[in-house]
């Protein structure tokens, strides 16, 4: 008989509780060997006797040494009503690293085996519980740690994206069929009229595709995170702000200028939006070659940022900020810039206002291409203005504009690439039809566009995709 397989289903690291999942025939028996049941719903005396979707309280022990390992809750799932369609149990234990390792050890010593990467989802898929695009979405759910990303992934899990893409595909098929018919019917009449009416039809579908593609501006942020870059001259309080926003002492905070020589990145969520918070080296002229590398990386980061938070500290020598000002205020307008007067706890309100006025007049003088999208006086110590920054991030995300009510959003890079490729082909096809070429070429282009869409919906299967999807799963999912 095949052994049941187990793995920790919650992410590594310290957490309040952790869940160890075991599935396959004999899961309950293996669990009973290491679990002394104290209290359960109904009369169940063992995991084996428990009915599906019920929970028991008890202790996990090592049968070899009779040592107690942890106090746990065991949830029982009976085939076929489980994630993988097999008998399975989930052990909710305390979140320490040692506890988890010990529980896995006793399970392995008592008849279970370690799950392979992606095995739980692969089995769920094999049992017909989920299809390929849902499997892909499961991965997105697992990877998402913000509320918005989870919602988007769940909507994909339910197939909303797929049904929309399918509809687009069906509309393309109408034109495709018309072109094919024209090729097969040698004596059909007005080809030119047919070309132009089909070009119009395709153009309408193309628009629908575009609005779906546009959702990726937001959707990308849900999967890849919004990049928020903190910049400012050395010692303007960037690292303090980073620590304040992320809640960790990620950056080393000192008051020696030039401490942060490289860019530092923290993954967190701000206002519900998943962000990569990037702390840059201060931008200033420097002789130190190591610091110079940091400075150039900081400039790169600015150009790739979705949001730039420019810190100006009132107590520093203001003139040093001029170089920064011209860099930031000449960024492309898609990059949102927040101007933050920092360390408000050390200066007066009036001094902050005066500084703001000075910056605005300098921007005019330097003929900057843009202005700041947001202004705030903040303090990383008193947390003054911090809530405002989070709101600014959230609003920036929302300004990327997606109709949330419709609930469909592209979040997956692969989907985006395929949809964009299909859209480009559609443009080519429309061009060919409008120029009145023969039906053969537009028909081929259209066919390949539909094949691209099919790879999103799973209607055209490629072995490469199956490989990629399952290799990206980590153990326990």
């Amino acid at each position, binding site marked *: 008989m095949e052994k049941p397989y187990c793995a920790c289903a919650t992410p590594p690291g310290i957490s309040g509780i952790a869940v160890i999942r075991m599935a396959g025939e004999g899961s309950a028996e293996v669990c009973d060997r290491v679990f002394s049941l104290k209290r359960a719903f109904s009369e169940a005396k063992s995991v084996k006797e428990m009915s599906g979707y019920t929970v028991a309280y008890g202790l996990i022990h090592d049968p070899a040494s009779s040592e107690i390992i942890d106090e746990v809750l065991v949830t029982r799932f009976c085939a076929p009503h489980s994630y993988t*369609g097999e008998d399975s149990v989930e052990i909710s234990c305390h979140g320490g690293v040692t506890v988890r390792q010990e529980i896995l050890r006793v399970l392995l010593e008592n008849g279970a085996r370690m799950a392979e990467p992606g095995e739980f989802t*692969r089995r769920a*898929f*094999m*049992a*017909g519980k989920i*299809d*390929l695009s849902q499997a892909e979405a499961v991965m997105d759910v697992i990877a998402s740690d913000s509320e918005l990303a989870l919602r988007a992934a769940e909507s994909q899990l339910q197939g909303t994206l797929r049904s929309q893409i399918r509809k687009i595909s069906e509309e393309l098929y109408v034109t495709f069929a018309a072109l*094919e*018919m*024209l*090729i*097969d019917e*040698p*004596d059909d009449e007005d*080809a030119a009229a047919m070309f132009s009416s089909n070009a119009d039809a395709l153009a309408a579908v193309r628009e629908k595709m575009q609005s779906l593609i546009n959702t990726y501006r937001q959707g990308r942020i849900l999967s890849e995170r919004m990049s928020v870059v903190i910049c400012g001259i050395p010692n303007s309080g960037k690292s303090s702000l980073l620590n304040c926003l992320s809640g960790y002492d990620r950056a080393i905070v000192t008051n020696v200028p030039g401490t942060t020589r490289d860019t530092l990145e923290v993954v967190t969520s701000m206002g519900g939006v998943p962000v990569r918070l990037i702390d840059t080296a201060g931008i200033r002229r420097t002789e130190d070659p190591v610091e110079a590398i940091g400075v150039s990386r900081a400039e790169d980061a600015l150009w790739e940022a979705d949001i730039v938070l420019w810190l100006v500290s009132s107590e520093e020598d203001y003139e040093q900020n001029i170089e920064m000002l011209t860099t930031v205020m000449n960024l492309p307008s898609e990059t949102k810039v927040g101007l933050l007067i920092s360390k408000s706890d050390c200066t007066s309100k009036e001094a902050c206002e005066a500084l703001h006025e000075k910056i605005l007049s300098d921007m005019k003088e330097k003929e900057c291409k843009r202005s700041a999208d947001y202004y705030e006086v903040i303090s990383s110590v008193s947390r003054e203005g911090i809530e405002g920054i989070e709101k600014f991030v959230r609003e920036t995300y929302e300004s990327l504009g997606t109709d949330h009510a419709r609930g469909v959003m592209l979040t997956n890079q692969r989907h985006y690439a395929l949809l964009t490729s299909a859209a480009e082909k559609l443009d080519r096809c429309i061009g060919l039809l409008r120029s009145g*070429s*023969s*039906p*053969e*070429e537009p028909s*081929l*282009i259209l*066919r*390949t566009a539909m*094949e691209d869409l*099919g790879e999103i919906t*799973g*209607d*055209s*299967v*490629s*072995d*490469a995709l*199956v*490989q990629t999807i*399952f290799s990206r799963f980590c153990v326990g999912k």
Partner: protein
Amino acid sequence: MGSWAKCNENPTWYEAGTYDVAVIGAGHAGCEAAFACAHLGLTTVLFTLHLDQLANLPCNPSIGGTAKGQLVREIDALGGVMGEMADLSAIQTRMLNRSKGPAVFSPRAQIDRASYSRRMKERIEKEENISLIQGEIVELFWEEQDGEAQKLRITGVRTRSGACYHVRAAVICSGTYMESRTIRGEVIVESGPDGLSRSVGLSQSMREAGIPMQRFKTGTPVRVNARTVDTSVMEIQPGEPDMPPFSYANEMKGVVPKQEQIPCYAVWTTPLTKQVISDNMDRSPLYSGVIEGTGPRYCPSIEDKFMRFKEKSRHQIFVEPMGEGTQELYLQGFSTSLPEEIQVQMVHSLPGLEHAHIQRAAYAIEYDCIDPQSMDLSMESTKLEGLFTAGQINGSSGYEEAAAQGLMAGINAARKLRGEPPVILDRSQAYIGVLIDDLVTKGTREPYRMMTSRAEYRIFLRQDNADMRLTKIGKEIGLISDERYSAFEAKMNAIEEEKERLRSTHLPPSPKLHEILERCGSTVNKSGISLAELIKRPEIHYSDLAEVDEKRPELSQDVIFAVEVDIKYEGYLALEEERIKKFARLEKKKLSKDIPYDQISGLRLEARSKLMERKPMSLGQASRISGVSPADIAVLLVYLESKGKEDNGARDDG
């Protein structure tokens, strides 16, 4: 039933001989099958119901056309005979679809029907390994293998007159003759096409071997006497005498189609035609339910066209000559099963045909055929080992479709007896591959006609490059002579050299070039440009550049065509190549026959039973079985992956 033992018990039966292969039926499929077997060294007995009607064209007097022309070229590239014979009997040639891109250019020839049949008969009679016999096969003999009643193998065939032949394989190409009946209105005659006698009993014998049968219907229009037709009011459709022949072999030998070509004509139906038909629909056997067989959607009768396309007020009819030594004209697009007296009114409603004298009335014909899903891709029955089927018996329609299947069935019957693996062309290699894969994998519920839209890799599957795609395979099979192969290689070299020359020849700006570009409506370039870059422009053709291309070598028409297509469509061809690579990945994943599909729980129930029943050869083929969804294929992919059972063993499919 089906056993040799009976031969000894029945006093009127006798042992008539032993052959490697029996080919039953000498139509377009049967002739190709017999030639293939004979050329591959097998002793072949070819049975026909009517010695004077070999390779008959009982319907349209033409070979080729959209998608069908591609088939003829492919048959020829593999070493079949249809193209060669068609060139010799052509009385008009044309390239269809000229406005629709070179991928779908389709050669078609009007054929002198009597000449075609006579030439084919003579050629078969001269063939060393073929015994041509007039006789009706009414029974197949078989034996159980390894004592299993489910595993049958063919051992012989019997004619109505009692002659029993020992054979190791048989190819049945029964056309529309099995248990056929013709229908005109209320008049039903138990007969084959053209009033010829039909085949009785063979179909029952096949049924007893466990082969699932279906009943199909097709039809043919009236023939009229040209003397009574006024063609002056019709649109004339002249031929194109400078067309290259169908056959690469003929091209090599310098055989060209006839130069004095006979024209065809086109007319439109009139409001009266529609009136006559709708007034008499109650007498149509199709609508009254007399006809049980399923008819072809793509080649409907005229009443069917009016009924199904109500928005169209008229339909085009083509008037085509039946041959040189006859006054008979064929009315293409005017097939019907309405009663004879109505047919007269219908014909007289057409312009120029008001006084036409009908020589043969139109009819519908019903016949027995097999469910082609009971074959494997080599065209061998999965129910009766050693039995191959080709042509209309497999549910197809059309001479070219039949010939293509006959050739492949003949080749694979021979290879089986020689202990060689079958040749299976895939969908990216040939229309033939598409045709057979469609029939075997998807099955058909109506007579299957080849169409360009059925081929997914059309830009690559062109009529002009059939030799590039298939001659090498034909050579490996053994149907292409050394002489012909070296001619092919020379042509390939010429194409490559010319492409290279065009790419490397740069033209400086000159008044002559300027003039040519302006004449073609192209943009004038100021710096130099290569010939290839010029040809890449849609508005410029190879022939336009003759004046400025001084070192142009003397090349044949088809080399020039291939060079031009390759250069002009470079981008599309590259795109197609990518798609073919993707396609090939699933085709290469072979599925072993012992996969327990019924135990793979991720597969939907329908897919499980379909896969258990059909046992597809590859994941690609599985994906085309109706009832197997992409999700099921993904499940199979993961299954193969996790079982590590994938058989990547080098199986040579051609």
